[in-house]
């Protein structure tokens, strides 16, 4: 018979969020978001294969504020999942696991994902001749 006083793992509601735990669930959330967001990208490609009208419709949606917002979310999710995925691959190799290192490479991933997203959008607007 199990003891009534045995330690239980804390419920999520009373568990203090930490960088490591928040980043972990973010990796999963961005993965799901990317799976859904890929459908949007697919519409673009299928529209290009269908014809000019369909393609222009999708382009117009992408250029709308909701389209841009979705693309911004998609691009950030992609860069976050990419950077944190590389962090995971290092962990799989047994590197960067110590507490201090996990926090350092965690912040590095956060910074890199923001910088890369900004860079991609600046590049995108630059190629549209916005600057």
């Amino acid at each position, binding site marked *: 018979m199990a003891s009534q006083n045995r330690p239980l793992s804390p419920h999520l509601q009373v568990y203090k969020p930490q960088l490591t735990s928040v980043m972990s669930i973010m990796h999963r959330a961005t*993965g799901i978001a990317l799976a859904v967001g890929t459908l949007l990208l697919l519409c673009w490609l299928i529209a290009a294969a269908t014809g000019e009208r369909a393609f222009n419709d999708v382009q117009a949606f992408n250029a709308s504020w909701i389209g841009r917002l979705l693309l911004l979310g998609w691009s950030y999710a*992609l860069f976050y999942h990419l950077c944190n995925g590389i962090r995971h691959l290092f962990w799989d190799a047994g590197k960067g696991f110590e507490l201090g290192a996990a926090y350092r490479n965690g912040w590095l991933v956060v910074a890199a994902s923001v910088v890369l997203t900004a860079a991609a959008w600046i590049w995108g607007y630059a190629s549209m001749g916005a600057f």
Partner: protein
Amino acid sequence: MSLRSPLGKVRGLGSAKEGVVHWWAQRMTAVALIPLVIWFVASIAAMAGADYSTFRDWIATPMVSILLVLLTIATFHHAQLGLQVVLEDYVHTEWLKIACIGLVKFAAIGLAVATIFSIVRIALG
């Protein structure tokens, strides 16, 4: 007491009945996706606002078509492997879990085929 050897246990006797195949495929597709995704996002950013014919000409370039097909295969394989783990973690009704995983796998294959067909159609047309 188990009479199974440690080797026997890892060879297809985990909860997924497939040992480390799933884990390994997730990592291999992840590694493949690193350069493919960087190339793709850079290309899309460089072509922001491109018109219909520019976009099609780009896709029809042989190297681009090949890389897009590779990106499609790696993306959908990686995505369905990841979604499978999420479903295994959170859906606890056995029949529903199997139905959801099946749906994700069928959808991934269907969408991947639709994508590849679109790329080939543009590349050859």
